[in-house]
């Protein structure tokens, strides 16, 4: 890691050295770090390296030409990265981040900082080795890709993130920040790789709310669906290979095994060392073993809170707590991730979850209204956990038998209410009411209620939601 000047002009009253150049408030144009093409090509390098190895071992005949082809590919990727680095520059001026990029199709992107939902710093494995980080801006739009600055020196990325966040906030909140900055630092820092970065990143230390236990995380992943599928798949492959006793069969199954192991690894990597810290600018999350992700959820941006309790975890008293935040998740390297919610607690005890929920929600209605008996005919399994509840701020609905999911939705975030009745439900005198929040990930479904009750919900919920919105705006 290259030595960098101790940074952090914000806040001046913090326990940090106020040295270091102010991040670009001077409206000049800046470049990305010269090593960023290498980081960009990093993933391709790994893929191509694996490919070369596989080809080398699989057929030794055509190795020469294959190697040349691969080297040409690597060179092309690198050259593309260098060109893209050459033509990319960025600037912060008048509360707007501007990025200019593109050689053939020139793009000039403007990101008004007042509309930023969150700013993340992401580090891939190679970037960590080189001490670089990628800055990602998340805007509110459903499909806009958001801004990416890849890559900057890590310290500069963190400083820029602080700076941009402070520009995104109302100016009056600086006092709060200073007050928080004098609060005691994060306790329990140990030998984990996250900690060195934590100290540098969190200029205003907050209150540590949660830290995942690595051993429990490993056990939980082994007990999760991914883990069970992985174990079963590998066992089946070994069995097939043993029965056939032909190396060819094993070789053909190898890619499958690699894929399964990668899926498990990806989960472990993304959830490893997950911490949640409460600070003035919201909840700070960071996690990752090789690829580090740091993210701040600003207050009032949580669209839904979901408690997930798979069957095997329930027996051990474990659960997972996820939140949905408006705006797209943009992890290009991991598409399946974007379908999932952001896990505040990848795996934790019920007590952890209770504490986190009380931090996220002001009141906490329990799903106490169970489904009518006739729902048993329609949902014999899930009937057990079908329930909902509400107060004047939140609606909560739970469902699922193998994997119990309890979803809290703030009434002021409800976008639309839908009443649905299928043929079987009609025969049984049931109906469901669904509450949609922004995005495409969460719908709280009040499943299988009696028709009268569902009608009552549909009649009264829009009014309650509108009251909640009015209250929310007044506050």
């Amino acid at each position: 890691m290259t030595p960098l000047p101790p940074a952090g002009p914000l806040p001046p009253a913090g326990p940090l050295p106020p040295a270091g150049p102010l991040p670009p408030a001077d409206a000049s144009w800046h470049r990305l770090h010269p090593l960023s093409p290498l980081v960009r090509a990093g993933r391709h390098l790994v893929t191509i390296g694996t490919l070369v190895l596989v080809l080398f071992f699989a057929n030794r005949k055509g190795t020469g030409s294959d190697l040349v082809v691969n080297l040409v590919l690597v060179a092309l990727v690198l050259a593309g990265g260098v060109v893209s680095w050459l033509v990319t520059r960025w600037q912060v001026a008048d509360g707007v981040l501007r990025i200019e990029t593109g050689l053939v199709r020139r793009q000039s992107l403007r990101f008004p900082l007042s509309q930023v939902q969150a700013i993340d710093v992401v580090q891939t494995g190679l970037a960590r080795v080189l001490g670089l980080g990628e800055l990602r801006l998340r805007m509110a739009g459903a499909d806009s890709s958001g801004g990416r600055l890849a890559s900057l020196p890590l310290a500069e990325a963190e400083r820029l993130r602080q700076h941009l966040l402070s520009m995104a906030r109302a100016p009056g909140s600086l006092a709060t920040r200073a007050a928080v900055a004098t609060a005691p630092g994060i306790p329990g820092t140990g030998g984990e790789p996250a900690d060195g970065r934590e100290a540098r990143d969190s200029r205003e230390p907050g209150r540590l709310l949660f830290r995942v236990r690595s051993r429990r995380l490993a056990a939980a992943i082994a007990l999760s669906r991914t883990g069970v599928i992985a174990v079963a798949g590998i066992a089946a492959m070994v069995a097939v290979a043993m029965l056939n006793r032909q190396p060819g069969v094993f070789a053909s199954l190898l890619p499958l095994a690699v894929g399964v192991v990668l899926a498990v690894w990806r989960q472990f990597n993304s959830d490893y060392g997950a911490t949640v810290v409460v600070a003035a600018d919201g909840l700070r999350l960071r996690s990752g073993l090789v690829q580090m992700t740091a993210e701040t959820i600003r207050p009032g941006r949580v669209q839904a809170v979901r408690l997930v309790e798979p069957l095997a975890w329930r027996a051990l008293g474990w659960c997972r707590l996820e939140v949905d935040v408006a705006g797209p998740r943009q992890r290009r390297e991991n598409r399946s991730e974007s379908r999932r919610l952001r896990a505040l607690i990848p795996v934790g005890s019920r007590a952890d979850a209770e504490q986190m929920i009380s931090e996220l929600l002001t009141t906490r209605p329990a799903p106490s209204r169970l489904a009518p008996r006739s729902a048993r005919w329609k949902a014999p399994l899930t009937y057990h956990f079908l329930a909902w509840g509400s107060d004047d701020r939140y609606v909560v609905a739970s469902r699922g038998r193998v994997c119990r999911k309890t979803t809290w939705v703030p009434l002021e975030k409800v976008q639309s209410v839908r009443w649905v009745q299928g043929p079987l439900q009609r025969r049984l005198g049931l109906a469901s009411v669904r509450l949609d929040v922004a995005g495409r990930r969460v719908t709280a479904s009040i499943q299988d209620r009696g028709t009268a009750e569902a009608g009552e919900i549909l009649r009264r919920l829009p009014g309650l939601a509108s009251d909640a919105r009015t209250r929310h705006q007044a506050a």
Partner: protein
Amino acid sequence: MTRSERPGDTTPAPGAPLADPGAPARPDGTPPDGTPPDGTPPDGTPPDGTSAGWQRPSPLLLRARRIQAGLVTGPVALLGGLLAGVAASPAAGLGTGLGLVAAGVVAERFLARRVAAWGYAERNDDLMVRRGVMIRRESVIPYGRMQFIDVTAGPVERSLGLATLRMHTAAAASDARIPGLERAEAGKLRDNLAALGEAQATGL
């Protein structure tokens, strides 16, 4: 449509909690034959209190749907018949073609009910849209939540002077569209909704 024609707001007194904590936890009152105590029609129409205010799409929508069904059935039957005729025997081809036409005719029987199921109601704070025969749906979209509204018209709809109005919220799941509006009415409704949406707009 003018404001005064809008059905009354059915919102109850504000602040009343939805779930009455004193009520029994497991309501058993709903008999399985689907006759709830409050006099809801047994066919399961939700008691929305706006039954008087439902607006319907134009009667021409049924014709549009029939033309669309015919436009699909004809080529599909022809192609299916030809394929079966080439693959097997001419008799099989004729049978397949006629079978596909028959399926189209049967589907046409259901069109009338599906078209009749569409309805919308403009209320004080939100728009209600209902649809569906087999799976009934009823959506409530607050005006303040509408992100944008678009009016589209396919070739068949355009030839009959119809248009489809579609409302978008920030949630991808809230699916609210009203097909088969007369074009002028669709434009008027769009402007009306846009104005209401602007007046009541709230942040995410």
